[in-house]
């Protein structure tokens, strides 16, 4: 087996571990059981659905929350950071597919490939800037430092390093850079369920529950968007 093939196999194994471990965490949380609710929902049976939809759509827009309005730079850095992480995962996925002798890019027009590559590079650049900035902010800001534990730094460094190495190996393809990127990717995948990066799963569960809770009570969407009791 070639080195690339071995790396791709390890990446697949790491990804499988991530998925299985996240599934384990998910089912462990589910084992606590669902809360049966008795109070009648405000605004009818659709209020839970409306609240959940709001939580994942308008409720995530920068102007929907005071905390974001007051921290627009951090919010933008966070968005950039996540874009970079998604882009680095996209490149890892492409590496695996190519290593196993498949290629989807050949069937796409050159313009689409060029656009995709530009977007990937741009996202990785933004991701690195976002990741490094947030890491510095966490280390410097006394409140953030106070609420942080080693996991916060490790998670950031791993994700930022994965994006940075993906960018570097993409722009200047060298064997050692590629190997460093792939190894970082494997470590990152293995670490995801162990630390705070598990929020890649729990974010969706929590956000749904937020929308469902406040939607049921007629508080989401806010009154200005047609929600609420007696609106």
């Amino acid at each position: 087996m070639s080195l690339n093939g071995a790396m791709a196999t390890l990446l697949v194994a790491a990804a499988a571990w991530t998925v299985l471990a996240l599934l384990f965490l998910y089912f462990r949380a589910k084992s606590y059981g669902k809360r049966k609710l008795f109070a009648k929902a405000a605004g009818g049976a659709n209020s839970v659905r409306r609240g959940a939809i709001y939580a994942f759509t308008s409720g995530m827009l920068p102007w929907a929350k005071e905390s974001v309005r007051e921290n627009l730079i951090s919010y933008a850095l966070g968005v950039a950071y996540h874009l970079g992480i998604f882009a680095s995962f996209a490149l890892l996925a492409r590496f695996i597919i190519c290593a196993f002798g498949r290629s989807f890019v050949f069937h796409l027009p050159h313009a689409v490939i060029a656009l995709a590559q530009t977007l990937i590079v741009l996202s990785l650049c933004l991701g690195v800037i976002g990741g490094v900035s947030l890491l510095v902010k966490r280390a410097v800001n006394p409140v953030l430092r106070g609420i942080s534990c080693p996991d916060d730094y490790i998670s950031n460094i791993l994700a930022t390093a994965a994006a940075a190495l993906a960018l570097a190996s993409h722009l200047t393809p060298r064997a050692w850079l590629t190997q460093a990127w792939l190894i970082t990717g494997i470590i990152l995948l293995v670490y995801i369920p162990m630390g705070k990066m598990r929020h890649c799963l729990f974010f969706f569960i929590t956000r749904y529950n937020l929308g469902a809770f406040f939607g049921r009570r007629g508080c989401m969407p806010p009154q200005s968007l047609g929600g609420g009791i007696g609106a």
Partner: protein
Amino acid sequence: MTEADELEVKLNALTQAEIESGLAVFKSRLREAEASYLNSCVHCGFCANSCHYYRAVPELENVPARKLGHIISAFKSRFAILGRAAPGLVGARPYDREMIRAWADAVFGRCSLCGRCSINCAIGIPMPSLFRAARASLTSMGLVPSDLQAAVDNSLKYGNNMAIEREEWIETVEWIEEELQAEVESDSARLPLDKAGAKYLFTVNPREAKFFPLSLQASAKVFWAAGEDWTMSGDAGWDLTNYGIFNCDDEQAGAIVKNLTDAMERLKCEALVIGECGHGYQSARWMGPEWLKQNFPHPVLSFLEVMDEYLAQGRIKVDPSKNSLPVTLHDPCNLVRHGGITEPQRRVLRRVTTSFTEMSPCGVENYCCGGGGGQLAMGRYKARRLSAGSVKARQISDSKAKIVAAPCHNCVDQLTELNKEYKLNVQIKTVAEIAANAIV
């Protein structure tokens, strides 16, 4: 012995079995939603400024993520694999006396359960649900502040949190009825007690009977002007408050809310109307059915909805020029952010005043006054409560209003203290008082 000393004595007397039992109570309060929340915080710190405690005193222990962090770290140390294997890595710390002290300080001493952090959390963690679970754990170990527990005990023993005896309640109602009849110059103005089959069973805060009779008189005047068929309970079932929502002992909270459902069953009214009270509304409308594990067969309405309907239907006539001073509105957290009652009070105030102005921010984004979460009943944390209230004081001052409408008696109490503390020079009134003043 001071309250703080009392906590230390109780903490030191805890046995390991009691500590284990406290942790078991915490775990028993979790369902899959809460178990997910415990895995969701990313420590971004966005929640910091959403908390009025942090806004007032920007120190680490006032950051909601920090308060939640104490809970998560104890949970991880016991129930998470990595928390047990590598506690230092994920910030897991044991659930011991030091941690219990941190929990008590965080969830009783620095949190009014207002939920503002939830709507501002980047992830969307409904933090009060976890803070409530932590309070339940502390209460089960006897670490609830004694004055808060006393209010619960009064409700369980007397049917109201101020230990008002039946005779005293009835005499007060009769006296207020005489005052109302004198005010409106009509014997038809009544405060009916135990009228079976009335449309509405109206409930009040015992503070109205004890200290704010004009508030009850105002509500009764609105009912009278609308020609409503209403009643109050002579026995247990007239007090809308439920401090069980604050000590978070669901069994006790359920027993208290049962006073209301029993009165409804006894008097066979169509709807239960909760007077102006935030936690009372949340307790009866949202939490009560969960505590009793049953659907209520009757609607639970806020008196604000009732007044809004009267005005919309033209059942009461008002002259807004009778309320010509600028009025602003405080949004009680339990009524608005956790209750969903946001617009009725605004519509009422727009109709009964000539100069209504919103605070900034307002509605679900409004700040807690600082008196919520049972803070008014916990003398131990009074200084913090008044300090955290500085955010609300600034909002009031910036509004330039002369009257603050507060549809909640706990909020009225806190705002009255803030009025003195920060020399705001405003009047604090319930919405019913303002509406009643405009009735023609």
